[in-house]
């Protein structure tokens, strides 16, 4: 963390960048939030630890419009999103000074709490530089320990890799955290009977309160105006609980980002209701990989996206239901 702060100070001082985009400490030990830092003074609040899950690439859309360059801290997985935004001309590469920061897996406070750890006062072992494999958590009920991996976000268990896809410089080492297969969860649902599938999604989607957190956090959901807020589809009747968007919101959202979603997992991370929203996006990714060849959005900035591409021999829609 200190290395990042030091570098940020240098870059601010020599005028390379006009501001730094990173995270600052929140009011609790586990809720740092994205923040801009424009002076050395402000940087004293800068933090970077296991709870800095937020993907900052989406902030670069706005930062690209500001005067001067912005130093942005991107974790390996965030760089996919940045690349995808670059491909869609939403961010300006020249306005970004990308510091690829190391990552040893990000922590999921909800998961920690679910394991009965409440009243948290401080957490040790969440620092990136910390080699410890366990978290030491001071609570008002005393000290608790938890293996780091048991506190990780789902997305880190299926990590895409330690490499930054795009960067100006790299600070810090990343750790291999992948210990599960990315599509296992999707495959499990695919194997269910239609009744089970429906029951599963109905129960999950019934939790949705339409707070739009998923949409706001998603780097692919970067439209200036969401179709659900415009009158282009007659789909913007928010007040009506029985309206079109209420039922179809998540399917449509997943379709809109299909082929563009990098599987960064922000939607699931930010959902206050804990809906596993990534299961929608990942289903599309799995289908795309299986039907049209492996494709990872954000891996590059010039390949054709699967939905703006075709081959003469593409599978017919009737393949659905014929597969296993």
């Amino acid at each position, binding site marked *: 963390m200190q290395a990042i702060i030091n570098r940020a100070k240098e870059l601010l001082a020599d005028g390379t960048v006009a501001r730094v985009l990173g995270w600052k400490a929140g009011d609790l030990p586990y809720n740092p939030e994205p923040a801009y830092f424009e002076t050395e003074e402000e940087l004293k609040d800068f933090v970077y630890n296991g709870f800095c899950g937020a993907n900052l690439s989406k902030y670069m859309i706005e930062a690209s*419009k500001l005067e001067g360059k912005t130093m942005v801290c991107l974790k390996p997985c965030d760089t996919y999103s940045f690349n995808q935004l670059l*491909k*869609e*001309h*939403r961010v300006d590469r020249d306005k970004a000074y990308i510091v690829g920061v190391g990552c040893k897996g990000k922590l999921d406070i909800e998961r920690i709490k679910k394991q009965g750890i409440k009243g948290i006062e401080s957490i040790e072992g969440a620092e990136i530089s910390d080699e410890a494999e366990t978290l030491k958590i001071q609570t008002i009920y005393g000290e608790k320990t938890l293996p780091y991996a048991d506190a990780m976000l789902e997305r880190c268990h299926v990590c895409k890799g330690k490499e930054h896809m795009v960067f100006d410089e790299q600070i810090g080492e990343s750790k291999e955290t992948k210990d599960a297969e990315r599509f296992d969860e999707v495959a499990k649902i695919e194997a269910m009977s239609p009744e089970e599938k429906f029951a599963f999604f109905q129960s999950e989607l019934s939790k949705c309160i339409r707070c739009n957190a998923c949409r706001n956090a998603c780097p692919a959901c*970067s*439209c*200036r*105006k*969401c*179709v659900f807020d*415009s*009158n*282009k*589809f*007659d789909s913007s009747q928010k007040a009506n609980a029985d309206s079109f968007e209420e039922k179809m919101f998540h399917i449509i959202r997943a379709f*809109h*980002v299909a082929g*563009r979603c990098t599987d960064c997992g922000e939607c699931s991370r930010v959902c206050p209701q804990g809906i596993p929203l990534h299961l929608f996006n990942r289903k599309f990714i799995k289908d795309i990989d299986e039907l049209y060849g492996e494709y990872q959005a954000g891996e590059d900035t010039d390949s*054709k*996206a699967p*939905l*703006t*591409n075709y081959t003469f021999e593409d599978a017919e829609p009737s393949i659905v239901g014929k597969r296993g």
Partner: protein
Amino acid sequence: MQRIGVFVCHCGSNIAATVDVSKVAETALMEPGVVHAEDYQYMCSEAGQAKIAAAIQEKGLTGIVVCSCSPRMHEATFRKAAERAGLNPYMVEIANIREHCSWIHKDMEEATKKAVILMRAAVAKVNLNTPLQAGESRVTKRALVIGGGIAGIQTALDIADAGYEVDIVEKTPSIGGRMSQLDKTFPTLDCSACILTPKMVEASAHEKINIYTYSEVEKVSGFVGDFTVDIRKKARCVDMDKCTGCGVCQEKCPSKKALSEFNRGLNTRSAIYTPFAQAIPNVPVIDREACIKFKTGKCGICSKVCQAGAIDYEQKDEIITEKYGAIVVATGFDTINLDKYDEYAYSQSKDVITSLELERVMNAAGPTHGHLERLSDGKAPKEIIFIQCVGSRCSDDRGKPYCSKICCMYTAKHAMLIRDKYPDVNVTVFYIDVRTPGKNFDEFYRRAVEQYGVNYIKGQVGKVIPQPDGKLLVQGSDLLDNRQILKEADMVVLATAIEPNPDVRKIATMLTASIDTNNFLTEAHAKLRPVESPTAGIFLSGVCQGPKDIPETVAQAGAAAVKAIGLLAKDKLLTNPCTAQSDVLLCNGCSTCENVCPYGAISYEDKEVNDHGIRETRRVAVVNNALCQGCGACTVACPSGAMDLQGFSNRQIIAEVDAICR
């Protein structure tokens, strides 16, 4: 709020017999925005159109719905009627209650209910219609004719005579096509070359006609009035400007084993060759696969004997890019492959030949120099049997389901010519039906029977069995005498089905012209627009559209030319205003739409926008309305819904969906 008028057509009894039209009109009055509804016998008639005009003016209608036949039939009619009455033509919607309702449903109640729903959907849509203005695009005053047979030549001549530049692209080394392979033509028996050659010469000498032989269309882009075409001029290895057409190279060429395409493979030609004596241009090409120089690097005799120094082994294919306003397809036909017809012994015996091969056999420039002889042993045949409908009218996968149309007549011609020249030869024709609708056609056929004594037997041949002595035993049936016939013949001629040139599929794809299951190009309307493709600016000439004989081909070629001229004569074309439009305030500038546009109609500009007080420069999509054809691919690709299609907007389609599901 729109003021909508609904007009329900009876179409005589076509609609009214199954749909309660007055009920549809009554129900319409209850729909939002509808201020006028009426039904009438024939809405498309002048009186019907007058009713629409009157209602528009009297009731101040801002939109109309006509419940009638398919919009593909009369949308244009009603749009024009509305326009004459002062209403924007794009404020007209059609509810198709004939093809999609009255004609397919029998129960009146059910059909009426459906008609009401279709009307509702159209009303819901027209409520959201906005007046649209057609744009303009320019017309390149030059036509492309693909195929240099009689159809292509005639079309090119007619267009050129009207004063427009025409390019003919012909795949083979010479223009002339199938007609150049024919000996005589029915029903007047003129020599084919005698009537074709002058036309070929005229085309090549015409100052407005430019001929690319040994060339193929490689790529087509653009749209009506403004096509851009890449033509691949294959390397001839002979300099067209230097060659004098003396023919010495062909004489001296040591490689003479290549099968002559022109003579249907019945004899051979040299590796450097012109397909036939009257070829235009009279410049040979080198068949690289047969040429010893290309195969071994040694030889070069043609180059040595060419006094003009025209041989150029280094010549490369050349791509010519040219712009055209109209394209005429005249790709013609070939005979089908007979491999699957074992019973006729075509591949087993040299003496079983197709009618096109017989043309070459009877032709003085053919493999037998015009002598009628068996190809196996050169003997003069005494007994010839013709078999009709080989592969035509066949519903299995061996042949074609259609009638090839020309076989009855050319068989009568062949039979007659043989009997005329060789009166001692017996000629028998096995037929299923003799079809001779055409001027002087039946008289011609009857002459073959009555004057020339050709033996016509009603019944198909079941099998041709080559005998050890070289004869062919033909087993057929005589359905009128009800007996089976076993007859020995010296020669059997198969009236082989014709099919569109196999290349046409590739060409149709490039042109985005539709094609039917038999690979014939589809016409815009089977009866009323027979020489136009549904794709604007593409016209059809000759057999590529359907089987036809020479007189018909020439007539259609002229018709296609007239249609093309009609297009070229315009300085500007009104473009379809149902194009995509991007909302600058919603556009992300993400380039997704650009990636799916087949016409390259979308580009990006940095535009100053004022988004609710925020002024900034944004990268936004801009649609070129002249290029956009209105497919709508971009509208679905667009994640933010900024891209919408005029005339088929998201809200309009959703309104239709809602109305139907209501």
